[in-house]
């Protein structure tokens, strides 16, 4: 027996050398993997996959290739009764099967229980990275926040530990319960829903072209100075083959999804933005403050001054007042427009009149503007603190001590010629 044992032990060290010595070995990983349809077989396989999760991914997929073929053949032998219980009765539990396989194949025994959840952590991280980057980049694009989009793009890096060692089908992510539940929630084959979702899925190549066009447009929107359609179309001719290749690549190798899905989100968000602005742009132009000047006199652009009620320092209302600005131009408050409940009309254009003038009101019965004379108004006059400034105003006789022409400008200001408008009968 000792000779035999020596042989067994020596099989290990020769392994690496032996592999190199077999260049004629066919590349098995490129063979098409036909999915077995039986759910019991899938369940059993998933169980074994979980038990072998600590082994190198290529080795695991080779094993699962063998075992999957075996299981489906076994299931075919068992016929209709091939459920998980029947498979377990024939082969033992998936964990027992995996343990036996490990022992026979010379793999190290399965790491202790604490290592099992740890092995699914990279898969979880990868899934979280994919979700965060996709949702974040989509929302960031919608909100027009390039910095946020770039930040969320970094979330994809969470998947790097997994993607560097997992196979093209990313089996450890596919084995996650959340992903399994999602896949099982798909409509059953043959149902009406499934045929419509299949139809939508068949439109995928059209989406590949569409997103290429969006990408070309985005490049010009972000970097380009000219956004001519010709330039976008030229870039599209370059981007479209890349997008289609990427589409086929991600069908073959699911690891591409970590790059493609977040970018798809950005493209979809950009399309939504373009579609949204296309609908909103006529309204925007109309309400743009730059292209629309408000008639009448406005205070801080927010409060319309409809009339001016001059009072003297004692609060006594003054009448027949004309107001001029710093250039001697008459200040006219009339917007010539009156509103009520969204209806409006134009007051007849009149020459400037002295203040107070009264206001213009919309008359619902006639549909025209009606003149409302100034009503009595009590205002609080601020008490002047510097008394002497008011004194010369209230003591006209003192003016005669130092006679000045009434047209003379104040000493501090530049000469301004005011023109009194002719009185009108409006």
């Amino acid at each position: 027996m000792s000779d035999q044992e020596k042989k067994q032990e020596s099989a290990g060290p020769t392994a690496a050398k032996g592999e190199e010595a077999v260049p004629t070995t066919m590349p098995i990983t490129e063979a098409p993997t036909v999915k077995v349809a039986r759910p019991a077989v899938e369940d059993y396989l998933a169980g074994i996959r979980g038990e072998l999760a600590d082994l190198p991914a290529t080795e695991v997929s080779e094993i699962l290739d063998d075992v999957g073929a075996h299981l489906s053949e076994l299931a075919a032998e068992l016929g209709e009764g091939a459920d998980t219980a029947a498979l377990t009765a024939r082969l033992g539990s998936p964990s027992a099967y995996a343990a036996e396989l490990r022992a026979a194949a010379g793999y190290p025994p399965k790491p202790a229980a604490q290592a099992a959840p740890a092995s699914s952590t990279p898969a979880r991280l990868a899934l979280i990275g994919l979700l965060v980057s996709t949702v974040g980049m989509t929302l960031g694009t919608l909100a027009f926040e390039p910095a946020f989009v770039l930040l969320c793009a970094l979330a994809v890096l969470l998947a790097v530990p997994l993607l560097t060692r997992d196979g093209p089908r990313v089996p450890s992510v596919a084995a996650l319960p959340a992903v399994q539940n999602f896949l099982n929630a798909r409509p059953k084959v043959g149902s009406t829903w499934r045929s419509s979702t299949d139809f939508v899925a068949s439109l995928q190549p059209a989406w590949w072209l569409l997103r290429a066009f969006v990408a070309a447009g985005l490049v010009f929107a972000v970097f380009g100075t000219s956004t001519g359609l010709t330039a976008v179309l030229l870039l599209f001719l370059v981007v479209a083959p890349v997008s289609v290749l990427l589409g086929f690549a991600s069908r073959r190798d699911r690891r591409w999804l970590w790059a493609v899905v977040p970018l798809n989100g950005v493209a979809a968000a950009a399309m939504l933005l373009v579609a949204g602005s296309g609908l909103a742009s006529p309204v925007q132009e109309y309400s743009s403050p730059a292209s629309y000047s408000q008639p009448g006199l406005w205070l801080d652009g927010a409060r319309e001054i409809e009339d001016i009620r001059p009072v003297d320092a004692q609060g006594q209302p003054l009448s027949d007042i004309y107001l001029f600005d710093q250039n001697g131009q008459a200040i006219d408050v009339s917007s010539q427009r009156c509103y009520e409940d969204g209806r409006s009309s134009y007051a007849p254009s009149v020459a400037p009149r002295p203040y107070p003038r009264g206001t213009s009101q919309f008359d619902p019965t006639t549909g025209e503007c009606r003149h409302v004379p100034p009503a009595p108004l009590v205002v609080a006059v601020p008490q002047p603190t510097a008394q002497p400034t008011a004194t010369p105003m209230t003591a006209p006789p003192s003016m005669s001590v130092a006679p000045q022409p009434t047209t003379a400008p104040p000493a501090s200001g530049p000469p301004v010629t005011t023109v009194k408008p002719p009185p009108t009968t409006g």
Partner: protein
Amino acid sequence: MDTSQLLKGVLDLAVLAVLDRGDGYGYEVVRGLRAAGLNEVGDASVYGTLRRLYNAGLLTSYVVPSDEGPHRKYYSMNAPGKARLRETSEQWLAFAKTMESLVKVA
């Protein structure tokens, strides 16, 4: 002693001997062993052994598409595998002879 315990030491030889008759995929090897009377050999043990022999460079493999299910991965012995089979079977025969005489005496 359980036969499965005895099998462990000679499963490599048994699998190589089955593949020496012709290339086969995993389940074929299992059936070949069963047909030869090794009923207690576990399916998983056979698959594990195949993987180990393959990784040791004693087997090559190729894939044959199948109409009714997943493709089948056939294992085939190469020159190092044949050499190993010769070597191990000689050891086994000598060992068995020794055991036989020992057991007969007892």
